[in-house]
């Protein structure tokens, strides 16, 4: 049995079938969790005694920021798997996840800026967290731009993998150096996330939102990956059947 052959051609079909079964459940969980979290966070959670109601923005900001960071780690892990074990599905995951991660970073930055206006009095403060987020956005742009610039898709995936690995080693260094820089220059005193002892009715909706965002990420990632698998494996007979079935079902002309 030749295992490289197994990895190269065996996995996509398996992935497509399994992911097709997961996708509805993930989507339902995402909608349910995010809807509950939003209503709870907006209407039922008590206001913060210092920031009033503007603190409700953290129910979006924190999950987006967490997701943005873990998504970059996912890029690096997928890159490593793709480089070392030559798993094609990892290449697909890497390139499908990068745009979602960039969007999440953008959400975190935007909500951070909007939160900053009532809290700090200006739209943008060079706060350590926000600055790291901005740099993370640039790192995402780099991966996306490199992937688009290389026409050969195997090379593009490998190049992005190397870049993501270099980036993920750099991220902690960037994070610490930016934090250090921030303390030296006495930045904003309010931190969007650091707050002492949150009561349960404050952090429970946050937990729901975090879980919801992760499910959402999983669902969108699977959607992107499934399409990419169909495109890449267009020659395989099962893909031809699947595409024909989808065309018929969707009534696409």
């Amino acid at each position, binding site marked *: 049995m030749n295992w490289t052959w197994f990895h190269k051609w065996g996995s996509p079909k398996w992935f497509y079938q399994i992911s097709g079964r997961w996708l509805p459940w993930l989507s339902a969980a995402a909608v349910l969790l995010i809807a509950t979290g939003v209503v709870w966070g907006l209407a039922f959670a008590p206001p913060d005694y210092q920031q009033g*109601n503007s603190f409700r923005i953290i129910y979006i900001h924190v999950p987006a920021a967490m997701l943005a960071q873990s998504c970059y780690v996912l890029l690096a892990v997928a890159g490593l798997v793709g480089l070392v074990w030559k798993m094609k599905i990892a290449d697909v995951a890497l390139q499908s996840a990068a745009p979602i991660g960039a969007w999440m970073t953008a959400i975190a930055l935007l909500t951070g800026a909007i939160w900053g206006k009532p809290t700090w009095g200006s739209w943008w403060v060079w706060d350590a967290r926000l600055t790291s987020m901005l740099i993370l956005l640039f790192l995402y742009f780099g991966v996306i731009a490199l992937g688009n610039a290389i026409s050969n898709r195997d090379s593009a995936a490998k190049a992005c993998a190397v870049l993501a690995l270099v980036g993920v080693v750099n991220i902690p260094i960037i994070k610490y150096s930016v934090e250090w820089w921030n303390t030296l220059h006495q930045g904003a005193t309010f931190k969007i996330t650091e707050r002492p002892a949150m009561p349960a009715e404050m952090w429970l909706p946050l937990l729901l939102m975090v879980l919801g965002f992760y499910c959402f990420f999983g669902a969108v990632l699977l959607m992107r990956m499934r399409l990419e698998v169909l495109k890449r494996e267009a020659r395989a007979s099962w893909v031809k059947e699947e595409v024909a079935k989808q*065309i018929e079902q969707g009534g696409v002309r």
Partner: protein
Amino acid sequence: MSFASFSEFLAMGHHGLYVWTAYGISLAVLALNVALPLLSRRRYLQEEARRLRRESQK
């Protein structure tokens, strides 16, 4: 419920503008993220359908 009335809920204690824009933009971005793969899937299937028709005519 931490608000007495619906108008208070909308006002968010003078921070309504910020809270609602943050939530609005974020939910729009989330919706965009769902729409993009769906649209490109649809476009791909259309292309494939056209290609299959072209090939069957030959």
